[in-house]
C-alpha cells in the first residue's frame, strides 16, 4: 500500500511538471491555433537560462529564476517575430513544420552555447520540507513543482477566461481575419502569446531541472507532453494539468508495477492512454469540440 501511495504521489508531482510544459503549448494553441512542437526545447532553454544565472554566475535562485523568465520572454518574442510572424495568414500546417525546424535549431543552439555538460540546480526555488504521508515521502522539489504549477494554472486560466485581453486572444485563435476586421491588433496578440508561452515553458523547464539533470537532450520531454495535451484537450488549461497528472500517475504506476515484467513499458503507457481517450473523446477530455451545423 505504501509503495502504491509513493508511486501515486510522485506521479502527481511529476504530472504537474508535465502540466507546466503542456501549459506553454496550450497558450500558443489557445491564442493562435498554432501547434508548437518546439515547446520541449523552449522548456530546455528556460532551464539553461536558469542554470546560467544560478550555477555559472552564482546568483541566488530567486534572482536567477526571475532573470531566466525575462530572458525566456524575450526569446519567445524573438521566435515569434522572426519566424512565426512572416507566416501570418498561411496554413497552420506550414507553421507546424516551421516549429519542427525550430526544435532542431534550438537544440543545436543550446549545444553550441552550453556544450554537452550536465547541470544541476544547487538550491530550490523556495525552501519547503519534504512531506511524509504515511510511509510515503515526497521530496521538496516535487512539492515546489506542484505548488508552482497550480499557481501558474490558476493565473493563466483566470487571465484567459475573465480578462478582456484573454477574450481577444481566444477570439483571435478562432478566426484571426475576423478579429482583425474588428480592430484587434492580431500581430500584437501573437507576440504576447509567444512571450507568455516562453515564460511558462521556462518555469516548467526550471522546475523540471530541479527534479532531474539539465542537458541538451532535455527537450525530449516535449514528446512526453504531446499525449498530455491531446489527452486533456488542446486548448484547455484544466486539461493540461489534469492530463499531466493522469499521465504522470499512470507512468509511475506502470513503471513501478509492470517494469519487472515488461521493461520500458512505462514509456509507452502515456501513448496507450492517449489512444484510448481519443477513441471515446476525440477532442480530449476538456477540449473544444469542432462545431458543425447540420
Amino acid at each position, binding site marked *: 500500500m505504501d509503495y502504491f501511495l509513493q508511486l501515486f504521489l510522485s506521479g502527481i508531482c511529476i504530472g504537474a511538471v508535465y502540466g507546466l510544459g503542456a501549459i506553454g503549448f496550450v497558450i500558443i494553441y489557445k491564442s493562435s491555433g498554432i501547434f508548437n512542437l518546439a515547446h520541449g526545447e523552449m522548456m530546455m532553454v528556460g532551464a539553461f537560462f536558469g542554470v546560467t544565472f544560478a550555477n555559472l554566475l552564482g546568483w541566488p535562485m530567486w534572482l536567477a529564476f526571475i532573470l531566466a523568465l525575462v530572458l525566456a520572454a524575450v526569446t519567445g518574442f524573438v521566435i515569434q517575430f522572426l519566424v512565426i510572424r512572416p507566416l501570418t495568414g498561411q496554413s497552420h500546417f506550414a507553421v507546424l513544420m516551421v516549429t519542427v525546424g525550430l526544435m532542431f535549431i534550438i537544440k543545436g543552439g543550446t549545444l553550441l552555447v552550453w556544450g554537452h555538460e550536465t547541470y544541476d540546480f544547487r538550491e530550490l526555488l523556495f525552501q519547503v520540507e519534504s512531506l511524509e504521508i504515511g510511509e510515503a515521502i515526497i521530496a521538496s522539489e516535487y512539492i515546489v513543482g506542484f505548488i508552482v504549477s497550480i499557481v501558474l494554472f490558476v493565473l493563466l486560466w483566470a487571465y484567459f477566461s475573465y480578462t*478582456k485581453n484573454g*477574450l481577444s486572444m481566444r*477570439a483571435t485563435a478562432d478566426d484571426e481575419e475576423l478579429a*482583425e*476586421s*474588428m*480592430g*484587434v*491588433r492580431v500581430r500584437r496578440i501573437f507576440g504576447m502569446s509567444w512571450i507568455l508561452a516562453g515564460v511558462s515553458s521556462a518555469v516548467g523547464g526550471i522546475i523540471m531541472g530541479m527534479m532531474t539533470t539539465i542537458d541538451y537532450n532535455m527537450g525530449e520531454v516535449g514528446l512526453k507532453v504531446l499525449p498530455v495535451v491531446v489527452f486533456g484537450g488542446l486548448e484547455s488549461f484544466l486539461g493540461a494539468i489534469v492530463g499531466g497528472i493522469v499521465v504522470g500517475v499512470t507512468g509511475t504506476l506502470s513503471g513501478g508495477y509492470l517494469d519487472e515484467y515488461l521493461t520500458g513499458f512505462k514509456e509507452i503507457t502515456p501513448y496507450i492512454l492517449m489512444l484510448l481517450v481519443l477513441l471515446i473523446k476525440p477532442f480530449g477530455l476538456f477540449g473544444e469540440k469542432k*462545431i458543425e451545423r447540420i
Partner: protein
Amino acid sequence: MLVVNNIEVVYSEVIWVLRGVTLEIAEGSMVALLGANGAGKTTTLKAISGLLWAELGKITAGSVEYGGRKIDRLKAEDIARLGVIQVLEGHRLFEHLTTEENLRMGGHLFDGQAIKQKLDMVYGYFPRLRERRGEISGYLSGGEQQMLVIGRALMSSPELMMLDEPSLGLAPLLVLEIFDIVSDINFEKQTAILLVEQNAKAALAITDYGYIMENGRVVLEGPSEKLVENEDIKEFYLGLSQLGERKSYREIKHYKRRKRWLG
C-alpha cells in the same frame, strides 16, 4: 464622408477584379451596392476595410478617403478603429465563443461600463439574442447568427457600417425584420450604411442611393427611387419584364439584349 476614388484591385498580382470603382457615401446615408455574383462588390468592401491582404489582394490604383484622410494604406485593425466596420459575408462568427462573448469582442475597444450599456442597446434591438446570450454561438440558427454579427458591429459604435449580403440564406420574413432593424439603426444612430445585396428590391426600398456594379465597374448609379424605375434595373435585377403582353422573340433572349448602359 467616404470617397472611393476610381480604385483598381488585383488579386495575386494577376486577377484584375476592380477596374475603376468610384463611390461616395455621405454621413448618415444608406447606400446600396448591387450587382450579380462576381461583380466585385465584396472586393470593394474589403478594399475599403483593408482586408484584401488576407486574400493576397492589393489596391493598385486610385485611393480611398475617409473623412478627408487616405485610408487605403492602413491596416484593417486601424481602419476598424476609425469607425469603419465591415460585417463579413456569411454571418462569420467566433464560433467557439458564446453569444455575449462575441458581442463583447465587438466592443473590445471600449471599457467595462460602456460595454454594459452597449450590450443593453444591442439586446434592445435584438431581443432574441438576449435569450441566447450564454450559448455557444456556433450552434445558433442562421437568422440568429446574422443578428449576432450585426449586433456585434453595433457594439463598436461604427460611423460607417458595411453589410455584406445580410439576407443570405434567411427566411423572407426574417429578411424584412432585419432590414427594418438596419433602417432603425441608420435613423436613430445616424450610422452610415453601405448595403451590398442580391435582394435588389428590398435593398432599394430602404436605401437613399444605389450603385450597380458589373464586371468590376460601377455601371449605373442614382437615387434609389430613380433606380427602381429604370428599365434595365427592372428587367435584370427586379425581374419585372412586361407582363401580359405579347413579346417578340428577340426581346425574350435576354442574353442577346444589350443593356442600355453598355456603349
